């Protein structure tokens, strides 16, 4: 697969230009001390139990949401081609039946590095669910205030 292959209905993709050289960007994926500084949406923190960055190696961690909710995470690296590609499996644990596969591509650009993420799910239903609620599924009751601010900002 390349970043340009057409997306199937079981995939999701995001990309972003990072203002830095590719080796620095790639390095940010390779150690907990880097990952813990940026992995997850705004306001999230991570606690790592296991980490081994190698093909077949595992990163086991808990993500803590801003509202105090905890989300178990389990990642296994399937393929590592520094500094171009990282393929991993991602789920709540090694036996999570809803695990999905993510590929990060790192491309050099004149003004920085482009990171492209493509995630492939087992079914279209799982893909659709992830599109709507992956990650920051904070129970209905929280952040009504910030939600309101956010929506107001969008509407004004």
């Amino acid at each position, binding site marked *: 697969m390349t970043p340009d292959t057409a997306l199937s209905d079981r995939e*999701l993709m*995001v990309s*972003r*230009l*990072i*203002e*830095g050289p590719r080796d*620095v*960007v790639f390095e*940010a994926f390779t150690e907990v001390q*880097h990952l813990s*500084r*940026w*992995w*997850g*949406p*705004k306001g999230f923190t991570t606690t790592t139990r296991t980490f081994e960055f190698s093909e077949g190696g595992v990163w086991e961690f808990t993500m803590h949401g801003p509202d105090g909710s905890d989300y178990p995470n389990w990642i296994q690296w399937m393929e590592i081609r520094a500094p171009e590609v990282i393929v991993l499996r991602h789920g709540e644990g090694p036996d999570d039946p809803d695990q999905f596969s993510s590929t990060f591509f790192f491309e050099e650009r004149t003004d920085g590095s482009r*990171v492209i*993420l493509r*995630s492939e799910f087992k079914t279209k239903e799982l893909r659709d669910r*992830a*599109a*709507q*609620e*992956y*990650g*920051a*599924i*904070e*129970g*209905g*009751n929280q952040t*009504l*205030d910030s*939600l*309101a601010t*956010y*929506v*107001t900002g969008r*509407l004004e």
Partner: protein
Amino acid sequence: MARARTTADAFNAIAEPHRREILTFLKGRERVVSDIADAMGMNQPAVSKHLRVLREVGLVYVHPEGKQRRYGLDARGLEPVHGWTGGFEEYWSESLERLNTYVRKRQREEER
């Protein structure tokens, strides 16, 4: 373009600032109309109108208690809004935004 009905969905319902204020006020506690009207500085008919909209989209429930009707926040009604703000794309845009900040910071530190 015709405007969507306020009761079409949660997004339309919370587009109105007073209704957002009411939802925030109901967070964690049921209230009667007069409480809400006092807190918002609005008259009761206006509050009742907003509550009707919020009920129709499932953001507010009513709990009759004797002669009183107590209103509460039904946060499940916000699920579509959470879905919209919390999906895969949002998750990764925010993560990669943080990555960008981190990479820039590290470079500045190296330059020193």
